[in-house]
């Protein structure tokens, strides 16, 4: 099975145990900064970096951490990593930093990060932990971007508006305008829209999972007498 470990880590992070869709963790930044795709991308990348780095650090020093105080240790490590990222963003991606506001430092309290440190990094080797951090972060970032795209399309009729915030002035051409004289469904970019869009995304994921489950159940039922599969 060991060759499958990495594969498992990847599917786990991206789909089965996606931090945002399944574990419902880190919802605050998810909802707060996903009004456009670029904002989502910005915070997603920052979160991903934090997850990867903390997992890496925790995994590499896990032997020296005293069991009783591991949680405070994790907190300190995470806080330091996030602050470093915050400072760097402030220095080099200032515009984006301003848009994301306090949600950059708030990555500290993104429960997913300490959760991965405790549940994975403190028990696995450096390579696996780093991969786990990367993939979990990626899973989170993808949802963030996807949510951003949906809300942006509904709310503004564009995709990747404000790309220059992240990538510099040249990137303003990246903005795709889908409907030029679109009024915009304001709801989508207001707080209620964030909740509702995420609700619909999770419902979609549930639906996909269920369809898949039914399909595999059907496949199995050829061999095994059918069991009523009422979940």
């Amino acid at each position, binding site marked *: 099975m060991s060759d499958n470990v990495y594969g498992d880590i990847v599917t786990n992070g991206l789909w089965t145990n996606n*931090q945002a869709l399944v*574990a*419902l963790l880190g919802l605050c930044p998810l909802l707060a900064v996903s009004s456009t795709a670029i904002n989502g991308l910005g915070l997603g990348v920052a979160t991903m970096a934090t997850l990867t780095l903390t997992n890496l650090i925790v995994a590499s020093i896990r032997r020296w951490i005293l069991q009783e105080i591991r949680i405070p240790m994790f907190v300190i490590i995470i806080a330091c990593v996030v602050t470093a990222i915050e400072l760097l963003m402030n220095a080099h991606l200032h515009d984006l930093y301003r848009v994301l506001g306090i949600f950059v430092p708030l990555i500290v309290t993104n*429960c997913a990060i300490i959760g991965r440190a*405790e549940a994975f990094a403190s028990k696995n080797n450096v390579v696996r932990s780093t991969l786990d951090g990367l993939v979990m972060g990626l899973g989170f970032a993808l949802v963030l971007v996807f949510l951003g795209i949906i809300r942006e399309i509904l709310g503004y009729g564009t995709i990747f508006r404000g790309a220059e915030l992240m990538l510099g002035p040249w990137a303003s051409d990246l903005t795709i305008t889908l409907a030029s004289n679109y009024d915009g469904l304001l709801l989508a970019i207001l707080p209620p829209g964030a909740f509702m869009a995420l609700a619909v995304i999770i419902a979609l994921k549930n639906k996909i999972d269920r369809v898949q489950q039914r399909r595999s159940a059907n496949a199995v039922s050829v061999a095994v007498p059918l069991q009523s599969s009422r979940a």
Partner: protein
Amino acid sequence: MIEEQALVIAVEKGAVVVQTQRASTCGSCATKQGCGTSALAKGMGKGYTELRVVSDLDVNVGDTVILAIDESSLLKGAVFVYLLPLIAMILGGITGDYCANLFALNSEWLSIVFGVAGLVGSLLLIRLNPYAHRFQQQIQPRMVCRKY
């Protein structure tokens, strides 16, 4: 009526000492392993609290019993313990602010001092005040029955 399970750890005359046990942490975890919240609760939250309950029920050490407290008195208790100090602190701070304005002091030290005084004072009050004591009695749980 809020019910709590507890384990009897000592039986005295007319009273028993019980250990209450904490329930699950939070409901958020579809997958507990990934949840930092539960990790934290595990790492930092501590399990047992001991308390003495007046009771003449016939129980033995090791029995599980049910304690019950009236919901409203528990709520009152919670408000007492949690909210009173905060309100005292805020009111203290505002008073300090007001005094500072009165004496045209351009500093907030007064409100800080008053606020902290309010907080500490009300905490002490809760501990020392005879009414609070009575109150603590009132929110004493009753042991309703042996757990079946």
